[in-house]
């Protein structure tokens, strides 16, 4: 036990795990109804991990060898699950991102969730989420990671369904949990298979080069693909992306935290985490690349037609996740992970800003916000624009650098189609992002009538409370400076800087794609003469297709209804009632029936009974005599 205290690093990791769960437990059991105390506990328990994360990052900036702590958690016979921490650049960076964003969101939520009756619960759930996400970051083994990964799912379920009185919220929570679970089952199968064939699932071990050589290729591919199922679920890749847009039913800070910056990034992080293993399977890489691309295009197109601001950012998240997967799958570990980092910053910013608008105007529709004078909220408007620029990949914001890195990776991929797709995705991203920005910035009908219609319901919101704006400013700062840290991060993550041969064709095409997207958005939504209809509406069929979200929701609903409920469940239930239970009842009734039948043997007629008796005696006697 003394080792736990003498080794500060270990103690730090340990605290990162213990404090959030302590906070969760304390709040749930004791202080649920005391908002202030709950807040204090929760903040305390998120600030310390934050400080630990940054100090660890600082301390191990020049880390050469990963630091591993392992303790036995489960010691069964074949299955041994260690509980431990693995500190290497990948995990340290993620740890920092998670700690930071979750701290910021907790601060922000003070304002956003003020007065909510479930305030205590909310912070408890946030703590639980922090626990699980921190656990994902620093787990030393894949099974431990899986456990935290599942906890992420649980806390996201609780947070999405936080406003459980709303049917849509509880439905969305359920959907998120089940859909991610769908992927997780694949993940777990992968883990099971790897455990069986390989046994030791420590990440340090899995990633070692020896493993890739000792395992047959089919096993690596199977394992990698199955694990990728989990990634598809958590990181909302096609076709399991459907839960993410619905998940916006949760409070906006939750969307910012879970569904943009951390939880959805967990999938990408997982690939980065076991990148050496993953990249040993070309099949898995190809599948990932294809699915990432499909996801990117699909969600971008849907984002183009959405009117709910959070929906837009949700689809944008999906598309950016697709981008990250593409980057990773194209062979560039750094590009994907770097985009994850920058994306965490600017997407959280986007959501938090939107949250301010939503909180202020009480609506999710950005047309309405614009009409109500959204641009008058200066800080959010400025920061949201910064974030939008970053998202679109405009220099000098962070997104530019990371996106360029990904496009670079795609460019180097032998098949250029992926690169073109990436470019197209970048174009679409810029378009839908600035569609929102332009609508907000240049409202077409700036005098909404309803202002006269009834009392201004949000009169009390004068400006934005500081607890909400400070996180915005911090994130905006990050968004601006993070791009320039690319070199440092490269050295940190890879141990060396990449040799950048500046490919101007690549650079130019990326910038052109982004700018043309913005330009198109300007034409459609921004300029004075804009008709405020997307170019896509010229192709109504396509627009409808996009509006219906490529019919993916319909597909899943149909799948669920037709197969799960309609076929299996119904048939099994029928079988249970009629065949199994009916069979048993039949046996029972036929027993009674045979009893009734046999009771006719006992006729009231004495002589008939005697006759029977005599015949049986004779029969038995004859039987006995026959053999002799």
């Amino acid at each position, binding site marked *: 036990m003394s080792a736990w205290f003498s080794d500060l690093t270990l103690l730090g990791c340990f605290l990162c795990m213990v404090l959030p769960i302590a906070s969760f437990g304390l709040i*749930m059991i004791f202080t649920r109804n005391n908002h202030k105390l709950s807040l204090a506990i929760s903040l305390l328990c998120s600030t310390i991990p934050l400080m630990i994360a940054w100090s660890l990052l600082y301390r191990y900036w020049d880390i050469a060898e990963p630091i591993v702590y392992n303790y*036995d*958690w*489960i*010691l*069964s*016979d*074949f*299955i041994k*699950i260690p509980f431990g921490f693995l500190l290497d650049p990948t995990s340290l960076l993620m740890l920092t991102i998670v700690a930071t964003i979750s701290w910021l969101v907790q601060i922000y939520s003070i304002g956003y969730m003020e007065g909510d009756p479930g305030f205590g619960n909310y912070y408890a759930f946030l703590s639980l989420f922090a626990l699980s996400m921190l656990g994902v970051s620093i787990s030393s083994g894949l*099974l431990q990671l*899986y*456990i*935290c990964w*599942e*906890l992420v*799912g*649980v806390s996201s*379920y609780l947070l999405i*369904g936080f406003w*459980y*009185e*709303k*049917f849509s*919220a*509880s*439905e969305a*929570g*359920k959907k998120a*949990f*089940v859909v991610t*679970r*769908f992927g997780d*089952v694949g993940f*777990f*199968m992968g*883990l*099971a*298979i790897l*455990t*069986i064939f390989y046994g030791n699932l420590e990440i340090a071990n899995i990633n070692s080069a020896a493993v890739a050589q000792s395992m047959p290729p089919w096993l690596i591919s199977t394992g990698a693909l199955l694990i990728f199922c989990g990634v598809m679920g958590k990181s909302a890749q096609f076709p399991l992306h459907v839960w993410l847009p619905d998940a916006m039913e949760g409070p906006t800070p939750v969307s910012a935290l879970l569904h943009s910056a951390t939880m959805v990034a967990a999938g990408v992080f997982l690939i980065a985490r076991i990148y050496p293993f993953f990249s040993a399977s070309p099949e898995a890489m190809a599948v990932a690349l294809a699915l990432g691309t499909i996801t990117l295009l699909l969600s971008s197109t849907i984002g183009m037609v959405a009117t709910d601001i959070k929906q837009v950012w949700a689809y944008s998240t999906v598309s950016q996740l697709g981008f990250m997967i593409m980057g990773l799958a194209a062979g560039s570990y750094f590009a994907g992970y770097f985009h994850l980092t920058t994306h965490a910053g600017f997407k959280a910013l986007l959501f938090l800003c939107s949250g301010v608008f939503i909180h202020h105007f009480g609506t999710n529709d950005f047309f309405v916000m614009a009409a109500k004078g959204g641009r008058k909220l200066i800080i959010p408007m400025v920061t949201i624009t910064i974030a939008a620029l970053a998202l679109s990949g405009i220099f000098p914001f962070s997104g530019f650098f990371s996106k360029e890195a990904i496009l670079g990776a795609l460019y180097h991929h032998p098949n250029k189609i992926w690169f073109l797709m990436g470019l197209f995705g970048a174009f679409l991203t810029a378009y839908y992002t600035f569609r929102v920005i332009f609508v907000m910035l240049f409202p077409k009908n700036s005098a909404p009538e309803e202002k006269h219609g009834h009392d201004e319901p949000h009169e009390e919101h004068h400006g934005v409370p500081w607890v909400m704006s400070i996180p915005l400013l911090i994130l905006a700062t990050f968004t601006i400076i993070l791009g320039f840290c690319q070199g440092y991060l490269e050295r940190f993550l890879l141990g060396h800087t990449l040799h950048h041969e500046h490919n101007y064709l690549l650079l130019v095409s990326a910038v052109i794609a982004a700018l043309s997207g913005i330009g198109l958005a300007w034409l459609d939504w921004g300029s004075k003469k804009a008709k405020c209809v997307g170019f896509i509406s010229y192709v109504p069929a396509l627009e409808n297709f996009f509006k219906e979200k490529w019919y993916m929701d319909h597909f899943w609903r149909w799948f669920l209804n037709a197969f*799960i*409920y309609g076929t*299996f*469940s*119904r048939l*099994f*239930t029928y079988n*249970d009632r009629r065949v*199994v*239970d009916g069979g*048993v009842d039949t046996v*029972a009734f036929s027993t009674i029936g045979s009893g009734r039948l046999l009771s006719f043997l006992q006729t009231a007629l004495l002589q008939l009974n005697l006759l029977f008796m005599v015949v049986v005696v004779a029969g038995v006697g004859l039987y006995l005599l026959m053999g002799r």
Partner: protein
Amino acid sequence: MVEHVADFPYLTCMLLAPVVGLTIILFLKEEWHFLIRVVSLSAAAIALGLSIYTFVNYDTALGGLQFVEKYEWVKSFGIYYYVGVDGINAPLLLLTGIVIFTGVLTMWELENRVKEYFAFMLALVTGVFGVFMSMDMFVFFLFYEIAVVPMYILILIWGSTRKIYAAMKLTLYLMAGSGLIIPGILLLYATSGINTFDMIQLHGVHFAPWVQKTAFVLLYFGFGVLAAVWPFHTWSPVGHVAAPTAVSMLHAGVLMKLGAYGILRVAMFLCPDGFQYWAQLMALLAAVGIVYGVFVGLAQTDLKYVIGYSSVSHMGIVGLGLATGTVDGINGSVFQMFAHGVMTALFFSAVGYIYDRTHTRMIYELGGFSKIMPVASGYFIIAALCGAGVPGFASFWAELLVFISAVKVFPVRGLIALASIVIGALFALRVVQKTFYNEPNPKFIHFKDVSPFLGLPRAILVATMVLFGIFPRLMLDLIKSAVVPFVNGL
């Protein structure tokens, strides 16, 4: 197997605590409700305390049977009162202690025929304790029957919803199971050549293959009925629905484990070759049960039916783990027995509280209970999450162990069963959503939330789940200490 004789008859005391409680209750007046409750609670508390004592004081380094007491009972037939604890039954004794204690607390508000209720319940518990600690087949079976029969009256009098049918069905079903068990154990006894029912000694006998095959399949199906092995499970949802809360808790929580424990302790222990022969079938039925349970549960509208089918599914996991015959699988199975016991007890306890107030368990009539009684619903949600196999609860580890070893031994069946946990999640959350989320039903809005005292049993159960969920080694090392020699003997 190494035996360590007890210095004090802990196990006998554990067994006698409910008996003494029962006897005292029989001499109390019907009207003295409070006294009756207190007596039952103290009996349960003593049993719980002793079970915790044995659980904690079991020396895993020493291994083998500990706290052994062995007395000759019926000499001419070689029947012994032979009790002992090893890593397999220690958790189950603990489980029984916990469930009976919380069960008594859960039924604290009972007003109808209190005396008889607690008397029967204590009789039932005596049987359960006896089964778990017996190392003699005859005594094992004796207690097994004692545990099964009081159910009939408990359901009949204090039950609800088609209780007459359910009680009869359950009892007959289980007794039919016994009808298979008797020939099974007697076959082993008769062919052993040593005139004893002592399982440890019988383990040393190498039975002829046909004996093993026959005895195993008889015992498997006989005990399997109680363990709700598909397709002999239909008594279980019906029975759970009809039974009063604490009985459902005991029943799903503990009684179903008797079946699984019997398969493990008697069938597999004594007929290793038979087990090898039938393992494929066991795995198949278990996998079918897992998948089937969730799918059927998905279509149910009665809360208790839902839980009943989830039990079918979860007991399938136990069966699957046993079928693997590996240390991991059996570890997982035993752990799952414990975890599922606590979990289901929690489920029923939570439902019971709601049902006692609303008098409906129809999912579509409920709704929004998170708003009306947040704590009570919280317990249910926790149980549902356990049921969905969420980490942090004991059941997760069990499922993990079972599934991995199942995939290893029976890849196809294992993977199919594993896949069904998605449906399991859907299944659990569907109920939670329909019952506890959305707008509350105005009819129920005036109900009070559960008070700390009434919440105590549920809190104990949750605490147990979490304790062993976070520190699985507390239990797993213990289980392993018995399972490793067990599997080596297979």
